[in-house]
């Protein structure tokens, strides 16, 4: 581990010693998420969302494995019926598994988006955590692929037409585009080959995500977690062992967040979905408005914002911009020129950050509903800001901004006047006089 004061693992029983000499898995776990991982003591609740993302990944894998036992990847009504008849009606608690899996995907994205925006605000992507950030983006891309393919599996109208539209992105590229699309789908339109391969990949990718999560955590543990001040950990006073302090904090917060999850799952399970996906896929009937799941709305808005063939076809512009909108995040550690990590100490950056949050919300609104002239225009303006924010504003702000003075250390920022001299009266009165304690005992 990175800090010299990290508590080394001490096997407590003969069995643990025997194990430790042969295959020190408990030592690994202790150093990763146990008492052997020192964590900055000043983390706020935004730092709980990484663990929450891990919890939702687990929920998705567990519910998904059981659902897969009952699912048949068949395009001629089989996939739709195994979901909506067999699983929802006949499998014991099948409705619960399916609703938990559907809403679990949405909640996985909710916590991931909060996790990402936390990283954006507190500069978690800056040196020495660039690889943590980039591995996180790889996880996010894998999540998007997994979620998209999972949404195709029930083979409803939105499944079918979503697959049609999203694989259609590739046909925007000249020459190679159409062959790639046909290769991905296994045919000229989504059909049996598409469902079977999407099912196979939808089962595979979560385990790939799990693997990259391990790399993400490994890379994180080299420099250690960042913190709301963005100031480096200096000594033992700045940290607390992960267990029991952060396991307790993550524990109760996970309970609170899971309560929200079960409320949606049990009382509004279809709220985040689209009614059209309860209509069986019909290649001959196009839905009035094809929209992806809510977590893709901002990207869908970027795609649709290009309406003019300027040198390149509008569709190609849209596809290039949509891919760029995610890929540019990989360059973020080098685009942001400020050496100060935390947005708390960056007055100009802070304003632009909140503008970005509003901007992405507007993009979602523009992408999620039927395109009216108003919505298209707002989507275009919001897309302009999105690119300017990352590619133009961030590099400039880092140069012109005067950051606020940083605290000397994490512990000095969270002392709460707890040094003996400045202790608040309420606590001071409970303390026996300092020098006399031991002498009194004598």
């Amino acid at each position: 581990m990175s800090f010299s004061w990290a508590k080394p693992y001490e096997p407590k029983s003969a069995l643990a010693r025997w194990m430790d000499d042969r295959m020190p898995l408990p030592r690994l776990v202790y150093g990763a998420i146990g008492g052997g991982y020192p964590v900055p003591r000043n983390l706020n609740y935004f730092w709980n969302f990484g663990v929450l993302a891990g919890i939702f990944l687990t929920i998705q894998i567990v519910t998904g494995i059981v659902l897969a036992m009952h699912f048949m990847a068949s395009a001629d009504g089989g996939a739709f019926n195994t979901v909506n008849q067999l699983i929802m009606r006949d499998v014991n608690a099948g409705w619960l598994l399916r609703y938990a899996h559907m809403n679990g995907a949405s909640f996985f994205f909710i916590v991931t988006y909060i996790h990402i925006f936390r990283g954006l605000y507190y500069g978690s992507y800056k040196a020495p955590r660039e690889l943590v950030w980039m591995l996180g983006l790889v996880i996010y891309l894998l999540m998007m692929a997994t979620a998209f393919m999972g949404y195709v599996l029930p083979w409803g109208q939105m499944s079918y037409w979503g697959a049609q539209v999203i694989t259609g992105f590739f046909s925007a590229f000249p020459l190679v585009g159409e062959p790639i699309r046909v290769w991905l789908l296994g045919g000229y339109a989504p059909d049996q080959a598409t469902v079977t391969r999407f099912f196979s990949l939808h089962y595979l990718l979560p385990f790939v995500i799990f693997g990259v999560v391990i790399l993400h955590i490994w890379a994180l543990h080299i420099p250690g977690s960042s913190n709301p001040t963005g100031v480096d950990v200096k000594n033992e006073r700045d940290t607390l062992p992960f267990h029991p302090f952060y396991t307790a904090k993550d524990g109760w917060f996970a309970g609170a967040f899971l309560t929200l999850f079960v409320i949606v799952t049990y009382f509004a399970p279809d709220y985040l979905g689209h009614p059209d996906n309860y209509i069986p896929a019909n290649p001959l009937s196009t839905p009035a408005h094809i929209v992806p799941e809510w977590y893709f709305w901002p990207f869908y808005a970027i795609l649709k914002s290009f309406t003019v063939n300027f040198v390149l076809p509008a569709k190609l512009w849209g596809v290039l911009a949509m891919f760029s909108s995610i890929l540019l995040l990989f360059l973020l550690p080098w685009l942001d020129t400020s050496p100060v990590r935390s947005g708390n100490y960056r007055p100009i950056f802070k304003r632009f950050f909140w503008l970005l949050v509003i901007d992405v919300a507007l993009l979602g609104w523009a992408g999620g509903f039927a395109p009216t002239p108003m919505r298209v225009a707002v989507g275009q303006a919001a897309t302009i800001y999105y690119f300017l924010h990352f590619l133009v504003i961030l590099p400039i702000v880092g140069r012109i901004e005067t950051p606020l003075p940083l605290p000397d250390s994490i512990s000095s920022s969270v002392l709460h006047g707890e040094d003996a001299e400045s202790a608040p009266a309420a606590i001071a009165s409970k303390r026996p006089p300092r020098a006399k304690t031991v002498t009194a005992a004598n």
Partner: protein
Amino acid sequence: MIRVFGFLVGITFAGVLLISLISGVATYFADPPAALASTVFHEEPKALHLTSDGPFGKFDNRQLQRGFQVFSEVCTACHSLKLVAFRDLKQIGYNEPEVKKIASDWKIQVPSINDQTGEPATRPAIMSDTFPAPFANEVAARAANNNALPPDLSLITKAREGGAAYVYSLITGYQTQPAALLKQFPDAKTPDGLYYNPYFANLNIAMPPPLTSNGQVSYADGTNPTVDQMAKDIAAFLVWTAEPDLARRHADGIAVTIFLLFATVLGYMAYTQLWAEAKRKVAPVGPLDSANKARRSRAARAARITTSG
């Protein structure tokens, strides 16, 4: 280098978008989009309150049975209910002999084969069969319905924006086309063979009004069968067909939520207790810090003195 490249990409995208934005705005003002009858005269579903609404909602079996009666006497002429089995009717209060009788008496028989010859044949339904469809296939369904396809009703309240309220509004929403509509949109006259219904997406629906007069169904439980009542009952029944486990889901959800809230409160108390110390103990400098307390009590033990801490 990365920043220069990024800057150029950003400016390019922004420039192309600006052209798109300006041309969109220019088009909007030069050639404003014409209003459509289907947006101006379309109506949102009427309010409908069912016992299954809300987090504590349960089904009213008497209403579901009435709805089933409407379904079996009216809707089933054209609509299938493919995902629901006869045995599911036990959940809405029919007993087993009743369900067996409903299945075997069902006017549509189940496709089958002749045991001896293997020729296509039909047989009476049994409990484990799903409701047989009125038409053998889509071609037959369209041929009998002016080229429109009556949708399967199993999931209809989930498959339409507005759910049960939409079904109720649609069934009770037939009317003559308003004169104001024809005045504003002379070309939008409802074509022959279609019916004007402002709750339907494009205003003209191929389904003839299914419930036309009070008393069309005579309810076994003596409820007055007005068109409004029948429409409510069929909507309630179709909520049940879309999700027979709904009441179970609500009941389980309340138990799970209470359990999790309780666990969360316990977890929170554990957290505050654990952190109360950690938040104060930035460094072991004060006499109350556990490291110093431990040192003190060790010293006291060594001196064989009992202290209260």
